[in-house]
């Protein structure tokens, strides 16, 4: 059953140095506020997993929280590079960054395997690709029925899954609509689940295209209005595309990034 906590308490209690943490959300519903709280609490040596690292992981990496990144596409969508990510990979600043690299389908299926309580699942992927050669989380098998080659991908079960959603009720049931990415899979695969929401309401009025994750599957719910900005929350606020376009200017240079971090995250 989910517990209602403030964000500081939730992150302090449920994210520990060295943990494997997945902050997911596919363009939509990216839990920026929770990421900033991790930075403020100076968590270290995290292994972080996300299909699209996006600005949130660029910030976590630049702030020195991350030891290892699991990802499948590391860019600023429609804009260009993630400079803190590249600086860590290419120059080891502020600390060396270990990469574990996937395709979208591959990382998705690692979550699916984790959510299914299986040690692995199978897919048609990585075959023939150089990705298959550098990936410790991939093995190749022959189908026991047809003999055709398939890839086995290892389950991913984060210590903590962190997600943002539109609403929760007092009992901790969480309601989501719009693009949901791997929301269900990260909830079911993670040992602990922290969900930040735009608002807590008395009754979750159901709406078209929504789904509800029962409180039973969630550890903590935090009301954090605006918690996904500059990504978006359908029917609450739009994606701040200008801010995404501005990010290179704030992050290309280490000092500029540190100044931004100091003022807008540490000082917040």
């Amino acid at each position, binding site marked *: 059953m989910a517990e209602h906590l403030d964000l500081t308490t939730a992150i302090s209690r449920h994210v520990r140095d060295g943990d494997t943490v997945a902050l997911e959300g596919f*363009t939509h519903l990216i839990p920026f506020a929770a990421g900033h709280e991790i930075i403020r609490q100076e968590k270290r040596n995290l292994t972080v997993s996300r299909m699209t690292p996006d600005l949130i992981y660029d910030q976590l990496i630049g702030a020195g929280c991350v030891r290892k990144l699991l*990802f*499948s*596409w590391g860019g600023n969508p429609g804009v260009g590079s993630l400079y803190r990510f590249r600086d860590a990979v290419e120059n080891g600043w502020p600390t060396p960054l270990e990469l574990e690299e996937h395709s*979208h389908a591959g990382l998705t299926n690692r*979550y699916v395997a984790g959510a299914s309580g299986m040690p692995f699942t199978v897919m048609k*992927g990585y075959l023939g690709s150089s990705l298959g050669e550098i990936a410790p989380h991939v093995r190749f098998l022959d189908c026991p029925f047809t003999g055709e080659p398939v890839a086995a991908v290892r389950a991913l079960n984060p210590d903590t899954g962190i997600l943002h959603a539109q609403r929760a009720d007092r009992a901790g049931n969480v309601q989501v609509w719009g693009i949901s*990415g791997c929301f269900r899979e990260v909830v079911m695969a993670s040992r602990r689940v922290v969900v930040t929401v735009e608002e807590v309401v008395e009754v979750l009025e159901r709406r078209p295209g929504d789904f509800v994750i029962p409180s039973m599957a969630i550890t903590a719910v935090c009301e954090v209005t605006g918690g996904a900005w500059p990504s978006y929350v359908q029917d609450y606020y*739009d994606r701040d595309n200008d801010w995404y376009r501005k990010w290179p200017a704030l992050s290309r240079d280490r000092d500029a990034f540190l100044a931004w971090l100091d003022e807008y995250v540490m000082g917040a």
Partner: protein
Amino acid sequence: MADRTPAWAADEIMTVVASRLLRDGMSCFVGIGIPSTVANLARNTHAPNLFLIYEAGPLGAKPYRLPLSIGDGELAETADAVVSVPEVFNYWLQCGHIDVGYLSAAQIDRFGNLNTTVIGPDYHDPKVRLPGAGGAPEIAAHCHEVTVIMRHTRRAFVPRVDFVTSVGLGPAPDTRSRLGFRGAGPVNVITDLGILRPDPQDNELTLVAVHPGVDTQDVQDKTQWPLRVASPLDVTDAPTSEELAALRDLKSRT
């Protein structure tokens, strides 16, 4: 009335020529950037029932403006359905329900293998770290066919990619069938200079058409391997004023 040939930018003819390959009623797996422009141009011109699938989950999206990101709200709001990412990749793409995928890359080689991961010989110490695979390897594997769309530069058209992010058509003619891939792979490569297609004999990419006014030698100069040229070599139809107007209108909305 004769159509006066209008002037166009290099990206514009690449986009227009690529969009002509899409037929009405097809299903199309759409990446962000030029592929999204291509697909929505086709949908706004000759293929109004083109079924667009974005990897974030929207099925049958009909955006009015071109999205900046793969998961923009308008994609979900205009879609016939929005599904989870595992459902997109496993039930729609991997299961073989998508007719055509559009891909781009930092490098392409003579067999259509694509690199979007690292530049340089050592993965662990790259010269340039690129964004990575995203949906590309499975789009390349499972769509019935793939169109590659990218600017033609000497840096990009290399004999052998530094890293095979997405498998193309070779080196061996049976590369794909041995791997059990369902789709035909990159059967069209559209650049700002012309069109390349795999040679039916050995799958080597061959220049089959140039855009109006493009010199064949220029294409060779921008390709690091000795380029095969089809004979006769086609010249693509110039963008019509309607096509250009539709494209510019689409871009002006964004």
